């Protein structure tokens, strides 16, 4: 299991304002944390700072605390079903190691915290540049707590800040093939981008181009999530697909293509024949630092909205709408935005309607008889798309991600962008915020596993698609065996 920590920019600002003292002394405080459990990574979502009251801690160059301060933190954690995080500051920049005193303070309290809350103590250190480092204190045996370093700490909001543990996620070397890219933003930013673990949900016309752009930019670790197979009607828009690939899984063909176009020295491209709406796919997504939503259905978008706010993993979403009554193009526009704390969510921006989520779960969106009953211009009937529309949207989505991470001149958001094909206008809206009763940006924020994501153990449509491929593969193997047999006998 790998470990990580994440917090919103708002929480980070509260903590930094307390811990980074103008008098250059170290300080400490506690916070509540909630678990986000992925397939191979557990993240501590640092949610609510607990700042000291008078007499609860002492600052003397270093900092120390009275037992009642920890008791208060544990009491709050118990009331909210949360864990306890212990934070302190150091007087140097970057990822921080631990002194003997630091270890003693955290290791010595790990047992009490685990016994009371059922969750391990999480320790964090902030450097003078705001860089955070973190570790979990895991019970190895009775009264013995082992430190497990986090591979990264992520601060998520308008900007995406990340600090890596240099041994667990070492900076890859950028070769000649990335020279032009590195010259745009420098080796330090390239080292940050290249180490991100990025998930692409949906390996269709937009997802395949997003993936191509990412691996050429040098992103080494890309996870592709899609259960669907390539069909003939995909060939006008699917970047790596040709006729010979019909019937094969989209993610497999895409992963093969990416393996040849990547510029990363040690690429890790994982094709996952899963739906984000089934538990296995959901868990794989929780291991990622950033996700691209390249889906056209409401249910996966709803699940991704949960991930972006409850699990603090930014989701870059895009969608294309074409209106062509009677086969004549009337309108076409595509919209992209980044869902993350402090930004408008996918539900409030109209990217999905929860009522349609219910219809999809009920199987009605996969029932042609139901779809036929909808009006001709109903958004759930719209299937029109053009490769050039998809390539433009994919590019806008990747630019959203680059703006959020690179933040040139401190500008980290491109807003909600809508491109209108007929007029050639690109609208940008920065003023959009969530509705007052939005649950994602309020009650679900940073609550991780405590939020019911509305997923299923096995997605019936995904299971059917996988079963059909298994059957087709078996036929191909059998035909191949017969051909070999006939060839041998004819000799």
């Amino acid at each position: 299991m790998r470990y990580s920590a994440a917090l919103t920019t708002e929480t980070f600002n509260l903590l930094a304002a307390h811990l980074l003292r103008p008098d250059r002394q170290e300080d400490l405080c506690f916070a509540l944390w909630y678990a986000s459990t992925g397939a191979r990574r557990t993240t501590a979502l640092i949610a609510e700072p607990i700042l000291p009251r008078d007499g609860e801690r002492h600052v003397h160059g270093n900092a120390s605390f009275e037992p009642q301060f920890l008791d208060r933190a544990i009491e709050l954690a118990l009331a909210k079903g949360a864990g306890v995080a212990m934070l302190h500051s150091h007087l140097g920049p970057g990822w921080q190691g631990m002194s003997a005193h630091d270890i003693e303070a955290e290791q010595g309290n790990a047992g009490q915290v685990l016994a009371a809350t059922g969750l391990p103590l999480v320790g964090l250190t902030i450097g003078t540049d705001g860089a955070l480092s973190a570790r979990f204190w895991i019970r190895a045996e009775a009264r013995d707590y082992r430190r497990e370093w986090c591979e990264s700490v992520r601060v998520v909001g308008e900007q995406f800040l990340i600090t890596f543990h240099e041994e667990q996620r070492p900076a890859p070397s950028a070769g000649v093939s990335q020279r032009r890219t590195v010259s745009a933003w420098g080796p330090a930013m390239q080292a940050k981008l290249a180490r991100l673990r990025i998930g692409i949900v949906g390996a269709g016309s937009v997802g395949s181009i997003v993936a191509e752009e990412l691996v050429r930019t040098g992103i080494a670790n890309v996870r592709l999530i899609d259960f669907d197979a390539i069909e003939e009607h995909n060939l006008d828009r699917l970047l790596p697909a040709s006729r010979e690939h019909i019937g094969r899984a989209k993610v497999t063909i895409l992963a093969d293509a990416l393996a040849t176009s990547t510029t990363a020295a040690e690429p890790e491209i994982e094709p996952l024949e899963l739906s984000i709406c089934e538990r296995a796919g959901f868990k794989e997504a929780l291991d990622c630092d950033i996700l691209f939503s390249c889906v056209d259905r409401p249910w996966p978008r709803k699940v991704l909205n949960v991930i972006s706010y409850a699990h603090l993993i930014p989701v870059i979403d895009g969608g294309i709408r074409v209106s062509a009554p009677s086969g004549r193009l009337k309108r076409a526009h595509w919209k992209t935005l980044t869902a993350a704390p402090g930004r408008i969510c996918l539900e409030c921006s109209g990217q999905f309607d929860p009522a349609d989520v219910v219809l999809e779960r009920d199987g009605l969106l996969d029932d042609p008889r139901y779809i036929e009953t909808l009006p001709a211009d109903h958004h759930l009937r719209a299937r029109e798309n053009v490769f050039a529309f998809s390539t433009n949207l994919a590019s806008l989505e990747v630019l959203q991600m680059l703006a959020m991470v690179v933040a040139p001149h401190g500008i980290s958001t491109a807003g909600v962008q809508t491109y209108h094909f007929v007029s050639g206008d690109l609208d940008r809206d920065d003023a959009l915020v969530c509705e007052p009763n939005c649950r994602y940006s309020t009650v679900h924020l940073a609550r991780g596993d405590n939020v019911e994501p509305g997923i299923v153990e096995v997605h019936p449509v995904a299971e059917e698609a996988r079963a059909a491929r298994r059957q087709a593969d078996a036929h191909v193997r059998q035909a191949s065996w017969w051909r070999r047999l006939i060839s041998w006998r004819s000799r």
Partner: protein
Amino acid sequence: MAVNDFVAELIELGHEGARIIHPGCVVWTWPVETGPLLGCSVEIGVCVGDDYPDTPPRGPFVRPHLLPIGQPGEHPHGGVHPGTGHGWPNDGFQYWSRPFNGWPKSARNARAYLAFLRKLFDTLPEDLRIQEAA
């Protein structure tokens, strides 16, 4: 459990008979307050997802059958299905697959769902009568 929350809300609104008959499935008797069936009582069944109130309950399951099944178009004529086959455990109901499109701007609770039901019943065909339909 989300379904328990929904039932508790219904009971608080005066529908004391609301009960869970299957995981995620709730039934109660609904005195129709508007439209051509004003004054009649029907049984309403609702499937509530684990992520309620993020998502609304599905369209209602209704007993007795009130509308012809399998017609094209939107409410009130289209989107009427046999009750079985949509995760509903009880025959005798028919399923009205009407999406609650205003859910995000509503209060996201049973009161909002009942308002949605009232609107559905208010827009039934004027000549609809229960004795003719079953």
